[in-house]
């Protein structure tokens, strides 16, 4: 038996609204994951409520600026800094922005290649 879960496509401008709705419905932020694709990035925001597991997928071009959800889910700051540091995803308004210094790496945005 394997865990069932959903991946739902989402437009970047709907992200904060969706996060607020999930927060109101008592979901927790589980993780945020970036994947490099040819045109830009695929970002997956995962949420959970008890044993339910829900994922929202943003497919964005490289130059798109994504608004941080750290104002809604405080814990998002670590995931967002990670995506910014390693992949070079443009994320705006992170509540604790390390400005590329979360990981002490020699080469900026190494996973962007």
């Amino acid at each position, binding site marked *: 038996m394997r*865990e069932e879960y959903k991946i739902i496509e989402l437009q970047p401008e709907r992200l904060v609204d969706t996060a607020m709705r999930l927060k109101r419905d008592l979901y927790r932020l589980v993780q945020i994951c970036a994947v490099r694709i040819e045109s830009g990035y695929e970002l997956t925001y995962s949420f959970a409520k008890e044993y339910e597991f829900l994922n929202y997928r943003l497919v964005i071009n490289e130059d798109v600026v994504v608004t941080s959800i750290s104002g809604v889910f405080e814990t998002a700051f670590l995931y967002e800094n990670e995506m910014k540091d390693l992949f070079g995803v443009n994320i705006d308004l992170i509540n604790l922005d390390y400005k590329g210094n979360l990981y002490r790496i020699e080469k900026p945005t190494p996973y962007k290649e």
Partner: protein
Amino acid sequence: MGNRSIVPFGPQHPVLPEPIHLDLVVEDEKVVEAIPSIGFIHRGLEHIVKKKDFNDYVYVAERVCGICSFMHGMSYCEAVERVMDVDIPERAKYLRTIWCEMSRIHSHMLWLGLLADAFGFESLFYQCWRMREKILDMFEMSTGGRVIFSVNKVGGVLRDMDHEMLSNFIKQFDDMEKDIIELTNVFLEDYTVNTRLRDVGILTKEQGLELGVVGPMMRASGIAFDTRKLKYAAYEWIDVEPVVATEGDCYARTYVRIKEIFQAFDIIRQAVKQIPDGEIAIKAKGMPNGEAFVRVEQPRGEAIYYVKGNGTKFLDRFRVRTPTFANIPSLLETTKGAQLADVPILILTIDPCISCTER
């Protein structure tokens, strides 16, 4: 307002062998804020997946961490197996479950030793690690390794444990359990230990849910959630219920981990009783094409694995969200209002693994 100053904690600190840095803003002896800084041991292990055959990558996944190495390897395999729609033999699922629970006992015993060391109870630390050695011996007997086992593969496991070995392990667990009851009673009942753990670093259920806390830290705050209920490996045939405490302090976190050691013994006994005969692996045909998430319960809590394949032998992405990564925000919350002298114990009670966190 008292005198406000900033006290640096780490990256090298006697209580924690791994590097994490906190800037502790203190007023006199009371912490008012903690600002984390990580990234000292980021190794970019996830990125290697683009250059290594997905079968060989199991050995890299295992090296994410030296304590949960088995679970990292297994969970990577489970994620790839899900992408490839491979259903491994039942015996392999049970073997994975047994090694998972042995890893939990070993990890919790290691943590108890570190905790004893942190509050200065050296002989308790020695005893915890002495008991832990027995589990490492069993790992060596069953896998050939004490830290990295390399027994997982996409499609099952590489080594079997025969009936004689499993019976021998159960006998050893029976003996160990008696010793561990005696040992853990010191953590739960000793007056001086209690003064260091009780009412320190309280995380309420509401805070826990708000901050997305996971694992024993979550359950110690009264949240009954255990990823083993999601039935990966052989957990669908095993009776397992989350161990919960309600106080949310360092004592509750210690209590939950101690009870989880005994729960792990029970799970292994169930698994040994139910394990069927048969194959331990099947051949996974083709190349992974697609994506999958897998959630597992590591000793430190819920870990999430994501794999994305493109139909070639190289994966596009492998991502691990480790329990420590999820617990850092709650660590920062619990340090607020704590006494400076309690900060090492507080940090320790999330059972941080920085190697896992930074990958």
